């Protein structure tokens, strides 16, 4: 195969992928329920400015991303000795671009989000949820990771 053809193929492959450094996904803020009382469910709204979880995404204006959240079903007691259910419903998450006038768009954090970067190259995703501690839940700190995976197009 001529050298120019090889170069052409290589270039085509490069052009089809986002450039390194062009994309960014990072966790900004934990989803924090704070103090919850054993036996008393607690909810955090995705719009809570302090307690909601937050991720930051950056790509290019006009680009698209497919976003998937890996959500825990339980929080685990730090040091062991117990778990506590955590659940998420449709509307417990929303995405908001950073361009002026951007409108939040709610989605089900348990599903896939297809997002187009409109008006700006970055966006934030906010996450709420609910915990339902049993009356016999042991006192202590509980935690579990939430992972956001974004594929950029």
């Amino acid at each position, binding site marked *: *195969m*001529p050298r*120019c*053809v090889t170069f*052409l*193929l290589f*270039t*085509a*492959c490069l*052009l*089809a*992928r*986002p450039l390194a450094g062009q*994309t*960014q*996904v*990072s*966790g*900004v*803020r*934990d*989803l*924090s*329920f*704070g*103090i*919850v*009382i*054993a*036996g*008393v469910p*607690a909810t955090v709204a995705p719009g809570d400015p302090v307690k909601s*979880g*937050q*991720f*930051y995404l950056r790509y290019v204006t006009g680009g698209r991303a497919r976003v998937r959240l890996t959500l*825990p079903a339980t*929080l685990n*007691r730090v040091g062991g000795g117990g778990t*506590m259910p*955590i659940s998420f419903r449709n509307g417990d998450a929303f995405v908001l671009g950073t361009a002026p006038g951007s409108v939040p768009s709610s989605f089900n954090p348990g599903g896939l989000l297809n997002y187009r970067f409109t008006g700006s190259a970055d966006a934030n995703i906010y*996450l709420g949820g609910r*915990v339902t*501690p049993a009356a016999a*839940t042991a*006192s*202590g*700190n*509980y*935690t*579990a*990771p*939430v*992972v*956001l*995976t*974004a*594929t*950029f*197009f």
Partner: protein
Amino acid sequence: MSNSMKYAVALAAAMSLTAVSAEAQSGNINAKATVLAPITIAQGAELDFGNVLPGVNKSVAAASGATAGRFDLTGVTGANVNVSFTLPANLASGANTLPIGSWDGCHNTIANQAGCTGFTPSAGTTSANFVAGALYVYVGGTVSPAGLQPAGLYQANVTLNAAYF
């Protein structure tokens, strides 16, 4: 353009269209909560002004009065707690009322008024700590009977609210 070149160009074009991004990135946060056992509140003693005379104010001191009211709270050892009250403006005996002029409070981690920390129940929220898993809150006050205060048994509810913070 040779045939092989045309084929390569077509292939490259097809790849650019179909080779969607493999650029996947992840970010992490934590979901977290602190579980505490519920606070319990029990009535330890009623605030009792005893016999009062018309036109003569009578006080019960929270920090020393033998008939001061007391609430007994339990909570998680070491946890902070906010305490507030729902206080009546008057004691009532049927349609007659007996004004409560002021309120007095103090709290301690043991069931003893000696050395308790004073506060004003009507001033809002007071913060304390379940140092040893218990908190005792004492309540006093002053009633101000009118000169023609009708005789009778006057009473009203005093409610304590507590929440971790």
